[in-house]
């Protein structure tokens, strides 16, 4: 496969984000490399504090500064160097090429504007539509996400949580973005509503040929909607690959730990195997592998050498030095599969 830059919707290399606070420096993202092909959905998986949301904010240059400090070797989205954009151009890119869906639909909508106006607003700004055209298009978008036209003139507080998230999705889709970054879009919703919203997002993505980053902590959601997965831990990608790579050919002990922590719906007697210990303090940069202290497979070398994220197959990358030392190293999960 020849790799040309236009093969990717985005291409990030060496992203570092740290927050310099009164209580010390928090290293949120540490040397992150990430890219994604067109029309694909990437699941960005990890626990609280893994740096998922910070990565997304850094992609849009939305990390608050101070206290945030961002540096990056390469940050290209849709072929544009985001780092070099002027503030005005950046605004355009944010609304038009990339849009973001946040976790909490309650705070993403402005309570004093009608729902239809909030969608029309971005159409007026980015698509230069007239007011009436924008309103009409906005109503079409509402219908597309399953909200009847007759409710277009209502305010956000008159909508339920699931409907608000639909409105947020409609706003995100308004300008046919090339990339959608969805940050835990269904975490605040009930399961049956979550199922509706996920189905909707899947359909719309296919219809509009959009690429998507789905930030989530739920491996179930990843299995439902994503093509590729990147597992994050302490601001680094520890394993990345296709859905099959991650679920069927798991290689990183942390990924395995995540799977083992989940109650298995098919086998209710199985005991949960949690990852022991806690995530390390983000104000300290570990010398060796950041997961070593919680890892069941760790050897003394893991404490001192920093594992590099490297390819183990065409699509599959893992950052674990056990594979360097023992070529036949295999996780427990792989043995039973």
């Amino acid at each position: 496969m020849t790799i040309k830059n236009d093969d990717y919707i985005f291409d990030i290399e060496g992203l570092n984000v740290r927050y310099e606070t009164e209580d010390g420096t928090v290293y949120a993202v540490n040397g992150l490399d990430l890219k994604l092909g067109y029309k694909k959905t990437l699941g960005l998986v990890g626990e609280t504090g893994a740096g998922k949301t910070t990565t997304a904010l850094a992609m849009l240059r939305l990390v608050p500064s101070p206290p945030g400090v961002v540096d990056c070797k390469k940050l290209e989205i849709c072929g544009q160097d985001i780092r070099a954009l002027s503030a005005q151009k950046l605004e355009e890119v944010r609304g038009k090429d990339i849009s973001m869906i946040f976790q909490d639909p309650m705070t993403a909508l402005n309570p004093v504007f009608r729902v239809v106006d909030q969608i029309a607003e971005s159409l007026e700004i980015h698509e230069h539509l007239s007011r009436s055209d924008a309103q009409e298009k906005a109503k079409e978008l509402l219908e597309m996400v399953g909200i009847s036209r007759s409710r277009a003139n209502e305010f956000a507080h008159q909508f339920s949580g699931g409907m608000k998230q639909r409105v947020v999705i409609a706003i995100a889709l308004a300008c046919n973005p090339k990339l959608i970054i969805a940050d835990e879009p269904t975490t605040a919703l009930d399961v049956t509503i979550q199922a509706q919203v996920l189905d909707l997002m899947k359909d719309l993505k296919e219809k509009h040929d959009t690429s998507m980053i789905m930030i989530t902590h739920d491996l179930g959601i990843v299995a439902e909607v994503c093509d590729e997965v990147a597992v994050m831990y302490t601001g680094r990608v520890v394993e990345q690959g296709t859905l099959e790579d991650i679920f069927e050919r798991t290689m990183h002990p942390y990924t395995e730990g995540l799977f083992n922590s989940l109650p298995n719906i098919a086998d209710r007697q199985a005991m949960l195997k949690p990852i022991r210990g806690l995530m390390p303090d983000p104000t300290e940069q570990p010398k060796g592998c950041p997961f070593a202290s919680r890892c069941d497979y760790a050897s003394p070398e893991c404490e001192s050498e920093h594992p590099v994220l490297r390819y183990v197959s065409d699509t599959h990358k893992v950052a674990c030095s056990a594979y360097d030392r023992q070529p036949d190293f295999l996780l427990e999960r792989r043995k039973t599969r």
Partner: protein
Amino acid sequence: MTDALLDVRGLKKYFETSHGLLHAVDDVSFSIERGKTLGLVGESGCGKSTTGRAILRLIEPTAGEVLFEGVDVVKLGSGAMRKMRKNMQIIFQDPFSSLDPRKTINQIIAEPIKENRIITDKVALEKRVLELMETVGLAERLINTYPHELDGGRRQRIGIARALAMEPKFIICDEPVSALDVSIQAQILNLLKQLQERLGLTYIFITHDLSVVNHFSDDIAVMYLGQIVEKASAEEHFNNPLHPYTKALLSAIPIPDLRNKRQRITLKGEITSPVNLPDACRFAKRCNECVEQCTKGIPPLKEISKGHFVACFKY
């Protein structure tokens, strides 16, 4: 009758709102055997948390009986109720708001013991606190820390230690793990399970997460708009769900497994608020299998097979 520790009969809790009467809990009955876990599942607004709080009388129930070892808790006077509380405790969802930020771990765990004058001697009290901390896996050196210095998992352990302090027989776990990360969630679930085996505790496990409840419970009751629509053993619940809502709920869980795909049943619409309810099946509007009869009356909770109850006209 089996050895039921807790027997809830016709529990109701209505709230007056400006729009009308809100039926938060509407005629809920169930019983739990000693040492077992009942999972109470449902989506937000289905009344599962209100049910838990009404059982403990943190909210006064509108009607119904809560028999704890044969004593109706609802009828107890305030003094007797205070004594009764030693037997019934609760673990809260949010490990960030359920602990007083101005108290140290020592004070938080010791409070129920001091308040009920179980141990009055200072040295003995502290020994008991340390014992409880060890039971839930908290290091001794944390005794003087404040909750905000700790992470969610440790805070939830404090909440559990506090609930255990008075040696209750029965604990309501109100979404104890939904605010935690998966790896920490598994640690807490395992801890709760070990404690149950060791201390013979009886649990009501309230949650919206079906995979957790499936793992954790012996029996499962599914609630919808203030009523139990289906109740069965966990095994039966997952292998043979009968109520259309249960089926949809089960099929909606995203499963982290590529080989085990299920056919999803998508529900239309959303949960409505239980205000001024019509005299019909509450699920009828969203139900894929709704027939005319469903809009004409409330289906009773019927025993279909041994221990499997369903409230649906289909059966």
